[in-house]
């Protein structure tokens, strides 16, 4: 019984924190719109974002591009249809793999670091010190991180798509002996502006999720070093869950709306 009560209480705390995250997102967004955020923090965070995440996103998406293309080419070679390799890889990387992998890497690399930093600030009373100095922690800490995340995640996603596609092309050339121009022609024929916009929307949502959850969980941290560790894990797990959930919801809505507006898109 005690375990059930403890479990229920924990779910309630999580719900409260998710509600708080949404409120923090709206408030921080309003600070960004009105220019009431720390520019120094924004520049620091945006540069950290790029330097910390670029190499890891490049390596991971390159290898995913290799493995994905290898799998698809095996299946297509079995039915003698390697001509559609470019289109299959393009659809997978641009619409799903690029945004999701970049989002997950950002959640793990930047989100974790962000949560740990804010959590440490919380347990060492640095956030309290800001409040005493009448500095709003949302405009000083959260809004610059949110803005950096909303700008850098789409850029990193485009980069992830590019590197993943290069990996795919390498397999197409080496394993399938496909002409690179043919591979990219297929890529161009199937990937339209709409696909890029959808990938960017997903990236924008992923960036918002990572920054908002990491900062909110960080600001709620108690219990010293152990609390910092728990917050870091929790923010990465919740951000990843959010990324997968919203990726599905966006894909599903795009197909539902696309079916009505343009049946050709769904194909």
């Amino acid at each position, binding site marked *: 019984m005690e375990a059930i009560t403890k479990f229920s209480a924990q779910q309630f705390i999580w719900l409260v924190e998710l509600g708080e995250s949404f409120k923090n997102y709206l408030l921080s967004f309003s600070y960004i719109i009105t220019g009431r955020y720390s520019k120094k923090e924004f520049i*620091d965070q945006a540069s950290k974002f790029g330097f910390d995440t670029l190499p890891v996103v490049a390596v991971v998406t390159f290898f995913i591009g290799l493995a994905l293309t290898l799998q698809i080419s095996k299946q297509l070679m079995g039915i003698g249809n390697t001509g559609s390799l470019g289109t299959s890889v393009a659809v997978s990387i641009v619409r799903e793999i690029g945004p999701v992998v970049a989002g997950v890497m950002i959640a793990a690399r930047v989100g974790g670091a962000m949560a740990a930093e804010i959590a440490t*600030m919380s347990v*060492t*009373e*640095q956030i*309290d*010190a*800001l*409040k*005493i*100095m*009448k*500095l709003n922690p949302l405009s000083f800490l959260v809004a610059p991180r949110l803005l950096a995340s909303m700008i850098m995640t789409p850029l990193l996603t485009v980069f992830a798509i590019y590197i993943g596609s290069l990996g795919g092309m390498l397999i197409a050339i080496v394993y399938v002996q496909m002409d690179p121009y043919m591979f990219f022609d297929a890529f161009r024929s199937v990937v339209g502006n709409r696909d890029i916009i959808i990938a960017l929307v997903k990236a924008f949502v992923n960036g918002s999720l990572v920054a908002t959850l990491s900062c909110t969980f960080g600001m709620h941290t108690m219990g010293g070093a152990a609390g910092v560790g728990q917050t870091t894990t929790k923010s990465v797990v919740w951000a990843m869950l959010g990324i997968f959930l919203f990726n599905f919801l966006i894909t599903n809505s795009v197909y539902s709306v696309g079916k009505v507006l343009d049946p050709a898109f769904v194909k």
Partner: protein
Amino acid sequence: MMKLIEVENVSKSFDGLNVLDSVSLSVSSGENLSIVGPSGVGKSTLLRLIAGLDDVDSGLINLFTNKISMVFQYSALLNSYTVSENIKLALHAHKISKEEKHQKVIEKLKLVGLEKYQDYFPDQLSGGQRKRVAFARAIVNDPEIILYDEPTAGLDPILSTLIEDYINKLSSEYKVASVVVTHQLSTIRRTSKRVLMLCFGKIVWEGPPDKFLSTDNPYVKQFVNAELEGPILAGLLE
């Protein structure tokens, strides 16, 4: 003397545990109040409530000034900011030029003997130096009252004396009132004009520092003489 802080019947509990039980006190301008007591009896909680960092469960806290600063136990300096940037943050709302802000920062750093360290980051400083920077940050916007949470904890006796001297200097030269939460008898002796002992959520003794060291109150006696026998340990073990 003008009243700066008035705490009326304030209670606060955490997870069903009553940390403060109907506590009342007041602090006037230029006054130096020390709040003492064993660990975990609500001293820092009371300070946080006065500072507005936590909400009271019941009761009322009236602040008659908004020129209030706080020195935290572990300094609470922002690690990604230099010493001068940390202090400058406290001036963000002041409508003065960058040069004037810089002048103010240097002036306060000189006061604590750290003007050479203005471009250092907090993790390049010792614990005592961080404390002095926190002190400079607390006084840069000319407060009327400063709340100190264990200002001399973790410092050697010489550095403790230095910090105590700063508190006294602010009080005598600038008429800044102080509320000092401390365990250390030297800090009580050297910085306070009034001592208030908090135990198990209640004020158990109040008076001048010289009487604090000689009173027969069982709580104070046990605390001052560091005795194991007495009501404090019995209460803590309960």
